[in-house]
């Protein structure tokens, strides 16, 4: 399984790069296709022969014959139309007389029927009216009763509800008070915690700063011990040395960097002193160890 995994990964990377490459080509071809859309296709020029066939015809005779036939047909059509028109008018006259007679009979029958209908309707309406009045009275009585019941019920429900409301209000009040107290307590605790944390951080910071200044002092002591002071070195000397070291404190290189108020001989002697020291303090200072340190050398006279 472990031997298979690199092979599998190799295959996966291979196929991934293949699909990426394919995608690049597809995009490129699509662009080319779009770019050449409006090209006209190449067609070899085609030359095709044309043949025209013609027959000579006497047009004059042809037209006369056609016109005569047309005129005869029109004449026959007009005569036929006149006869049909007369026939239709006669038919219509007879139809109108028959309709007038039928209408008069129908009207007489209709009048009798309407009279009977009216009488029956008046009787029915009277009965209906009486019945309706009775029903309305009954309904009115029932409705009033229902209203009274409803009012009674509402009054009772209201009383119950107001009692419940009062209880709930009291409960809520208690809860709110408890919550407020808990919140205040929590805030006080958080505040305390924060203060503790801040103090702790400050203390650690201070420790680190202490350790760092101690580290610098140790370096100062060590370099001073290895320093062969040239006669030109004046008290009040301040020189910044950039020292590159490796874990364990071994010095890789030392150079003067930045401000230095000593002369050339002093500078050289300082670099030599660091190189002579060879190893800077390391045990106990791992926490503040840095690969490159800038170290200010001080000399204020013996």
């Amino acid at each position: 399984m472990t031997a298979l995994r690199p092979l599998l990964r190799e295959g996966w990377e291979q196929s991934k790069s293949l699909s990426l490459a394919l995608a690049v080509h597809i995009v490129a071809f699509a662009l080319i296709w779009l770019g050449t859309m409006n090209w006209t296709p190449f067609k070899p020029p085609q030359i095709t022969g044309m043949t025209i066939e013609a027959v000579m015809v006497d047009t004059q005779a042809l037209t006369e014959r056609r016109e005569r036939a047309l005129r005869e047909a029109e004449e026959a059509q007009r005569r036929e139309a006149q006869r049909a028109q007369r026939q239709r008018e006669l038919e219509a006259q007879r139809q109108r007389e028959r309709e007038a007679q039928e209408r008069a009979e129908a009207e007489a029958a209709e009048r009798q029927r309407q009279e009977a209908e009216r009488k029956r309707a008046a009787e029915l309406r009277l009965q209906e009216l009486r019945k309706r009045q009775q029903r309305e009275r009954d309904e009115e009585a029932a409705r009033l009763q229902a209203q009274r019941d409803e009012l009674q019920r509402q009054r009772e429900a209201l009383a119950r509800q107001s009692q419940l409301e009062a209880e709930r209000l009291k409960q809520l009040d208690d809860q709110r008070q408890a919550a407020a107290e808990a919140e205040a307590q929590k805030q006080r605790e958080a505040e305390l915690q924060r203060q503790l944390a801040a103090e702790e951080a400050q203390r650690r910071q201070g420790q680190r700063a202490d350790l760092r200044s101690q580290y610098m002092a140790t370096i100062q002591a060590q370099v001073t011990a290895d320093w062969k002071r040239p006669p030109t070195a004046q008290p009040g000397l301040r020189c910044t040395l950039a020292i590159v070291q490796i874990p364990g404190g071994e010095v890789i290189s030392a150079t003067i960097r930045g401000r230095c108020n000593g002369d050339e001989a002093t500078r050289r002697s300082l670099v030599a002193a660091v190189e002579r020291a060879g190893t800077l303090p390391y045990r106990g200072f791992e926490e503040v160890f840095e690969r490159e340190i800038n170290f200010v050398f001080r000399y204020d006279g013996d």
Partner: protein
Amino acid sequence: MSNDLHVWELIRDASLVVQAVMALLLAASLASWMIIFRKRALLAKATRDADKFEERFWSGTDLTSLYNQLSRDQGGSHGMERLFLAGFAEFNRLREQGRVSPERLVQGAERAMHVALTRETDHLEHRLSFLATVGSTSPYIGLFGTVWGIMTSFQALANVNQATIAMVAPGISEALIATAMGLFAAIPAVIAYNRYSNQVERLELRLDNFKEEFSSILNRQALSLAEG
């Protein structure tokens, strides 16, 4: 319909030699793009790993514990890790033999690191030369296809009395597609080759630097061992 397919029609109607040239160029282009994507991922990973390792190495950890940690995780180390492991392993082996002079100790470690560096370089440069080959030869291959296509289309002119430009134009146009494809394959390959060979060079320089620094550290350690 014919208006939509004109480019494909040109390719389809091309002579066999021109079609073969086009297929070859397409394959070369695909292969070079594959290598471009793979190299890109590889180089990015190598740079990232080198950054990570350098930070870890110079953060002030103990070398022996770093060695133990690194040799424990399986699955082939690369780059600086590999250099460090090779050098430190050789150093320890020689030291355990005892009675070996400090110079020999450091020389042995340096030799082991040199071998690892050569392997690493080979791994990084692998297949980069293919890109150079595609970049320099595919324009010529495309040009060959074009010349061949133009030759055949002029051949067709020889048999007619009244020659028109319309008789040779399609042939020349189809032949020129081969040149276009050659350039299409060559340009990305050349760009990628230049870019990646520069990146590989810089990575190699970085590895070499690390090798020097590490052997100076080993040198100090060997000397202090000899004194102590």
